């Protein structure tokens, strides 16, 4: 059975029996929208409901309610609803490109979006901190590489240790790309202006990465490392991917959407 068919059937049931389901989960009836309640019910009972749907091709409200009532007491709790919505919030961002994050827009009603603001901000902070740590590790790795290369006028053989250092640099570049994208995604979700996120990432991520790529290319050419890890190519591609995603995201969303520059704010 198709995934969209399952979601459609579950949303229909949640629309018809929303108040009863909210009572079982100890939520205020009518507080969650139908799509939000669907996310919560799916989070609680996905495995059982999918089995029911695959067997019958439809879902009955009574079945869903009885399955909900059979849950342990500690799971029939508003905290489960919060966990479900947080899971959905994360799934709307991780491993997705930035234009896709922008295109999805706000996932929840304003009060829930507001409640998630602090958590999203801490996610941004976490990812930026990882970018920061990767910068430091990258600086150490490049310093180590220069130390291994020795004197500039001495011809160096492409030793295994240099290749190992380049592999380490490649891993750091890959990690930084993932965290830079995640940090930008959470910031955009939190309603920060896309153009400012782009400016910031350009300064702390794209510009140093482009320089790293060009220097590593010169190094690889000089050492004739054609069959080893091509750090320069992966760094250049990573910078290009993030830059393109930021441009697409900025194009998909007008600048300062939902936000006002504090400097230009007159009120």
């Amino acid at each position: 059975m198709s995934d969209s068919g399952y979601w459609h059937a579950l949303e229909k049931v949640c629309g018809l029996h929303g108040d009863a389901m909210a009572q079982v989960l100890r939520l205020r009836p009518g507080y969650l929208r139908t799509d939000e309640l669907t996310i919560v019910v799916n989070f609680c009972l996905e495995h059982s409901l999918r089995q029911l749907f695959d067997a019958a091709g439809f879902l009955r409200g009574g079945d869903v309610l009885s399955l909900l009532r059979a849950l342990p007491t500690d799971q029939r709790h508003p905290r489960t609803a919060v966990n479900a919505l947080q899971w959905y919030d994360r799934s709307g961002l991780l491993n997705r490109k930035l234009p896709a994050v922008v295109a999805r827009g706000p996932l929840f009603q304003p009060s829930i979006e507001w409640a998630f603001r602090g958590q999203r901000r801490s996610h941004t902070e976490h990812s930026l901190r990882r970018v920061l740590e990767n910068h430091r590790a990258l600086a150490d790795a490049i310093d180590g590489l220069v130390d291994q290369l020795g004197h500039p006028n001495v011809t160096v053989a492409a030793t295994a240790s240099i290749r190992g250092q380049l592999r380490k640099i490649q891993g750091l570049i890959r990690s930084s790309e993932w965290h830079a994208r995640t940090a930008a995604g959470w910031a955009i979700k939190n309603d920060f202006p896309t153009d400012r996120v782009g400016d910031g990432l350009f300064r702390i991520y794209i510009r140093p990465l482009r320089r790293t790529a060009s220097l590593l290319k010169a190094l690889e050419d000089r050492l004739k490392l054609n069959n080893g890890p091509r750090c320069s190519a992966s760094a250049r591609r990573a910078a290009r991917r993030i830059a393109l995603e930021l441009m697409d995201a900025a194009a998909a969303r007008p600048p300062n959407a939902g936000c006002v520059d504090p400097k230009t704010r007159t009120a």
Partner: protein
Amino acid sequence: MKLSCASKDPNMYPATADIDIIDELDSATRLLEQALDRLEHWLTPQPKAPSGAAEQTGARDHTTTAAQRRTAPYGRMTEAGSASGSTGRAARSSC
């Protein structure tokens, strides 16, 4: 990264939301730039002593190596002094 914004509706969002790791990010980026400077220095071909001046005067101090000339204090003035036949004392005294 300046990640601050103020909402149109001050009741809905806080007026500003700054992330306090901006300075740390800047310092880490500077650290990376310094490491890249070192790599660039390694990659840049070492400049040779300008041959034009020596050819013009026809005199060149062959007792000093190119590396010594590059690292000599008051580099250009010392070279000029040696090119003019002095020992560099005149150049140093002019400083």
